[in-house]
């Protein structure tokens, strides 16, 4: 009898033991690239990123994508030139994938391994630090991806025969919302 009760309890409890799947949706985002030239310091901003996270068994997969041509530096000629050098017409999207344990959401700093696809190339960035804070049901994440032009085999664009620096750090500010 005791054995039967025990089995019944275990069977009833099994669904509760299985971890509930959850999803994350990107609410708002601001991605800013920074380009340094001897005569210019230029920033291009995009608010057009979309993202989603899927969690299962304590592990979450995130995908964030943004159209290359959505970056606005305030100068249409520069944007078209950037689109050309980054082969943005041939590869119109920048995608970022990362895999995080669900527990990462509880710490103030996330260290994420990122896989970035851009300009037809894939670059991996290990342990990129992002600050995060949760307020009113949304999680705000900020950080900088230490991207370089050579990571994506992009020839540095030049102005007046002077090329820009190889480093193009991308500042990330995102607001995520958890969905059941």
């Amino acid at each position, binding site marked *: 009898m005791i054995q039967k009760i025990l089995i019944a309890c275990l069977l009833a409890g099994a669904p509760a033991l299985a971890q509930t799947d959850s999803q994350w949706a990107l609410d708002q985002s601001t991605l800013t690239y920074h380009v340094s030239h001897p005569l210019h310091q230029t920033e291009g901003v995009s608010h057009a990123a*979309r993202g989603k996270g899927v969690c299962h068994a304590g592990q979450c997969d*995130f995908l964030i994508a943004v159209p290359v041509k959505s970056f606005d530096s*305030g*100068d*249409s000629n520069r944007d078209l*030139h950037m689109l*050309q050098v980054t082969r943005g*017409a041939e590869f*119109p999207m920048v995608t970022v994938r990362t895999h995080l344990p669900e527990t990462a959401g509880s710490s103030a700093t996330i260290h994420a391994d990122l896989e970035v696809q851009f300009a037809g190339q894939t670059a991996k960035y290990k342990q990129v630090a992002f600050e995060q804070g949760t307020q009113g049901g949304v999680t705000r994440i900020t950080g900088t991806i230490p991207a370089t032009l050579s990571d994506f085999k992009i020839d540095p664009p030049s102005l007046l025969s002077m090329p820009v620096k190889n480093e193009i750090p991308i500042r990330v500010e995102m607001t995520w919302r958890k969905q059941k």
Partner: protein
Amino acid sequence: MNAKAAKSLLGAWILALAFLLPAPLRAQVAGTALTGMVRDASGKAVPHAKISVKNVATEQTVEAQADSAGLYIVPNLMPGDYEVSVAAEGSSANATKVTITAGAKQTMNLVVGVGLSLSDLGFSPGQTQGSAEEQARLDKRSHMLKLHQRFGLIAAVPLIATVVASFGAGGKSTSSANRDLHVALGSVAGDLYGISAYYAIRAPKIQGTETRGPIKLHKILAWIHGPGMIMTPILGAMAFNQKSSGEKVHGIASAHGAVGIVTAAAYGLAILSVSVKF
């Protein structure tokens, strides 16, 4: 055969067998096999995923592929810490760490991030598919504008020299040598300007692009220095003829200097508008 001789014979046999055993067979028993299933986030088996196992200490990597049922096996792993990454087509690569201990077999199931794609984010195929034609148009545009920039910068040198030479060619000066130098420099500047303008005008236009920022000023200034570069030599030729025939420069030709200065100033400003951030 006595016991000692029998023992020696047995030892020799074992030694011979050890050498006769094929090397791979001996290697197979050396390490632990890591095995398990590759599944997606929903728990479904993922066939033919690629598994990469890297020894953290030696950085040596062994690769394997899951079978059609999602089962994988990586044999002969020495005890130690390993980084196991798994990737399947259309999924993100997941990495995880494992410590291999001595033994015949160790099981670890792997999860790949199948399921998230650009369509899940609401992007239409039209937004995510690239266009080689559009890229070629952009490449051609950049190439032609680069030439526009190069010839434009080169043209600035004889243009400045023309303005400098004008001080000895106009006014009360009667030297024909100064006038000839001014004309020659102006001609070179005009030719180079023409080549530069050709590349700017003929560069492919990209549909759906609204002109904004410093390039807008650069284009507005072209409406000043462009006509100016046509008017200045015409007026200059008239002034040259009047001066060469001993007349005082008069009529519309007297505007040559002013038009030339405005043209040169607009041209200089056009270069600065895209070179220096104001």
